[in-house]
């Protein structure tokens, strides 16, 4: 069995990261022109994000209300993750369960050794064994690809740009007001542009990494269809019940040229690719399996 390499996906991912990197270089270059104490800002922010990165696994679990479970409590879940990690050539991550009816799963942790996989009780009730394996393998693929680290680093300077947009005016004060005023406004504008572009690039990167984890997961289980089924089930359950009156909605939509969420603007801003696109790609993998 040989899988075809998805060069398109790799190319788009590499290009996105290259653009992000180039953008950041320009950004740092521009900032050094306006802020003499730039080094200090970067160091402080670095420490802050370093701490966030370091505690990310606990933070994510805590915010979901998840707790680590041992093999006695969830023997099946543990055994499934045992086998999948073995297949993925990964040390076994910690296993956590969150008490929630929303079917969801995520992986966290800065390194292979400190990572955890968390599932909600909802997803365990919704999916059958094959489908759950598909989802867990997708999460293990995230760990293998070190997505927490990649995304943290990718958003580091974006966060700084955002902070300058938000708080940059603080630097405009000082003794020689007249001569300093203009550059700070320029710096804020530069940061704003950097922030907007990097935001879009990071979202694109996130979507590409979801596709990559889908591929990786399907190759771990050897059953692309199981993950596709799981996605369909989860998507069906996640259908949001609209809260607004239909008539109000119709009025609001009149103001938009392209209704948000269905048009390309919605897609540009989302962190996950649409379920249909993900399923399409998994079907491609399924066809590859049958050698077609």
């Amino acid at each position, binding site marked *: *069995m040989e899988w075809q390499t998805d060069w398109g996906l790799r190319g788009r991912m590499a290009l996105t990261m290259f653009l992000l990197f180039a953008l950041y270089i320009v950004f740092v270059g521009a900032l050094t022109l306006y802020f003499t104490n730039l080094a200090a800002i970067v160091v402080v922010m670095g420490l802050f994000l370093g701490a966030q990165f370091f505690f990310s696994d606990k933070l994510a679990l805590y915010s979901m209300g998840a707790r680590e479970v041992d093999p006695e409590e969830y023997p099946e879940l543990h055994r499934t993750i045992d*086998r999948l990690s073995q297949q993925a050539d990964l040390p076994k991550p910690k296993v956590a369960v969150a008490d929630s009816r929303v079917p969801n799963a995520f992986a966290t942790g800065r390194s292979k050794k400190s990572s955890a996989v968390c599932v909600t009780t909802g997803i365990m009730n919704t999916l059958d064994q094959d489908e759950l394996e598909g989802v867990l393998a997708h999460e293990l693929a995230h760990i293998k690809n070190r997505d927490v680290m990649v995304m943290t680093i990718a958003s580091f300077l974006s966060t700084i740009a955002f902070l300058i947009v938000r708080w940059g005016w603080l630097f405009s004060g000082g003794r020689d007001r007249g001569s300093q005023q203009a550059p700070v406004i320029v710096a804020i504008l530069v940061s704003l542009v950097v922030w907007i572009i990097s935001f879009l690039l990071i979202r694109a990167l996130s979507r590409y990494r979801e596709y990559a984890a889908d591929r990786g997961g399907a190759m771990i289980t050897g059953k692309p269809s199981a993950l596709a089924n799981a996605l369909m089930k989860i998507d069906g359950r996640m259908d949001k019940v609209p809260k607004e009156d239909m008539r109000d909605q119709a009025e609001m939509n009149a103001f938009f040229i392209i209704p948000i969420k269905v048009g390309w603007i919605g897609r540009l801003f989302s962190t996950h690719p649409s379920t249909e696109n993900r399923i399409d790609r998994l079907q491609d993998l399924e066809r590859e399996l049958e050698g077609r």
Partner: protein
Amino acid sequence: MGLLDGLKSVLGVKAEADATRDADPDDLFGMSTAYVTMEADLGYEPTGEAALCFADVDSTDFRDAMDEVESILDAGRVETGTRATFETDDHGYQWVVLHDDDFEDLLTSIHFAADTLVERRYGSRLLAALFAFEDARSDQVVYWVYSFRRGAYYPFAPDPHDDHERNTSAEFKLDSNLGDELTVESDKEYWYPLWPDRPGYHPWE
């Protein structure tokens, strides 16, 4: 982590690359001398069983490959007398279980079966080969598990009295005594248990 591994992670292809990496059966044959040491120095007799564990693939071609494994083992049975049975465990993993009192025939048959899957390009689906030994005095069954993903052996000794507990002292003893003869996995985080579906039985039963 090497530079190349790091780059693979950054490009998001590490999971894909490792999951599809071919099996590494090179050090499997270390067992051909190690079993003598097991018997002579440590008092562990081969139980006459060895098994190959692999993950299923949902395709017609894979089922053809399985048929090929079966016919190769059937042909081998005429020569060596090694009997093969096919099992599916509660996790949906597939097992080829071989029965023979001659340990070297067991090892050869395991190798044949693994090799067939590797040749049919399903090497990445091979999980482990298990060789079962038993200490007659204490009823302790131990396994040498060969991980095709890591290309190394590790000991697995399920506690005969306690479900899902490992006899770590037996594992330690095996590790220290056979470390010279077998390629033993140095990172114990990869010493994955293969718990039997029912305590007291083999993992494939």
